[in-house]
């Protein structure tokens, strides 16, 4: 299997028709980040509902098919979940969501950008600081 195999129907569909794309008024969580290595940008917004759940979630961003599709799929997955769930979300969860593609270390950063933004927003909302374990290079 090669890295180009990630460009399956679903990914291309989420890229061209991203779900939950857009902005909301007065979000409780609003975080934005860009990948300094490639320039991809994602902004995530969350309205927090009763029981610290994700009542509504939206994103905007520009970037490659992988980062856009991954961010969009993540919003679908996150909707209705508790904020604690976001804290526990892992790289493997995201890769599983994308169908476990074979990605080189730099493309993995594209796949994880949405998760990184969502996490930093939610950590901030919960009064904590999110320290990205993958921030260094692209070796892990």
């Amino acid at each position: 299997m090669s890295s180009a195999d990630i460009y399956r129907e679903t990914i291309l569909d989420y890229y061209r028709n991203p779900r939950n794309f857009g902005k909301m008024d007065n979000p409780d969580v609003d975080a934005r980040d860009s990948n300094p290595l490639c320039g991809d940008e994602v902004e995530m917004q969350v309205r927090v509902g009763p029981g610290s759940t994700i009542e509504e979630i939206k994103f905007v961003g520009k970037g490659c098919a992988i980062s856009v599709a991954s961010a969009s799929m993540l919003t679908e997955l996150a909707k209705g979940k508790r904020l604690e769930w976001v804290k526990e979300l892992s790289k493997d969860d995201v890769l599983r969501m994308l169908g476990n593609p074979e990605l080189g270390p730099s493309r993995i950063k594209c796949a994880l950008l949405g998760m990184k933004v969502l996490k930093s927003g939610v950590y901030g909302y919960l009064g904590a600081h999110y320290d990205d374990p993958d921030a260094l290079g692209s070796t892990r």
Partner: protein
Amino acid sequence: MLKSEALDVQKVRSDFPILLRKVHGKRLVYLDNAATTQKPRQVIDALVDYYSRINSNVHRSVHTLGEEATAAYEGSREKVARFVGAGPRELVFVRGTTEASNLVRFAWGEKFVRKGDTVVTTIMEHHSNIVPWQLLARRVGANLKFVGLLRDGTLDLDEFDAALKEAPSLVAVTHCSNVLGTINDVRSICSKARTAGATTFVDGAQAVPHMPVNVAEIGCDFYAFSGHKMLGPTGIGALVGRKDLLAAMEPFQGGGEMIREVFLDHATWNDVPYKFEAGTVNIADSIGLGAAVDYLTAIGMDRVRSHEMRLVKYSLETLAGVKGLTHFGPTDPSRKGGVISFNLADVHPHDLATILDDDGVAVRAGHHCAQPLMNWLGVAATCRASFHVYNSTDDVDALKSSLERARGIFRA
């Protein structure tokens, strides 16, 4: 080989060990030369020879190894300087183009650029010819002015002339754009800038590796380039500067080698170029760069340039046949370095590069350290194929067929 003959690509290829490797089972088609070039056996051998035979610290040494290492290091300085038409005392070894512009910023800029002064650059610059001047301008309170481009990706010379009316203290411009391939007429630019009283800094990172360059003919004050982009090792490059300017500048980094005498309360400086080479220098890679210059000289820079012009012409013709492909930059091969930037329909450049890589085709995708230019082009990123001596029309054909495959996958 006679210099008038075309370059023998097969012969050249056999000098580059990395070209034997396979990527995803395919032949490596390396088209990322504007980022960094591959290295011929001759350059690798020069490093091995240095470490196996004469490795020693330079200049302060009395023993044989030290004398030999010094002779090799200084011999390389003379060789590299001659390659661009400079004198050896006008050449400072640095890590690369980026360190060169920062050296000028600190050692010349902080001394000679004043509050309210204007620094002129262009929007086609690499970040290393923008950010140092932003930091300088912020530090001293100067204004940074960007000259724009015409629709064809060449410099807007009317805007440039207008900018000169502000009597800038520095004009910093690239010799060749790493995105568009645009070759600027730096000779005329520097002559006008000089008349307007400006000091000139030319970024030659994409010129020296690809065409004959003579700093005396250009008439610039500073000229910078990187070894790793011209078949040389990583970690080495050069700043060429007018001798009187270098002498008038403050030192940059302080430490060993750049001093004459050190007292508790002050120190005095060594002669140029040593004043700017603090600490143990990158001896092996300077010598490796000398070997790269030998290699390029043996081929002949005129021939390198015509080879790349042929490849640019062939690429533009070939890629014109790919549906949905947009090309950025000048199309006249005589005004363009060996760099082709493009996008394919709505396919993001990173996705495109991933698919090309699958076929063994290595291109760069991204903003190419030129975000202001990306904004001007109205795109977030582009794909870039860039050439050097070991590339052939076969490589362009491989690029084309991989682009066609990508179009299929993306239904673009």
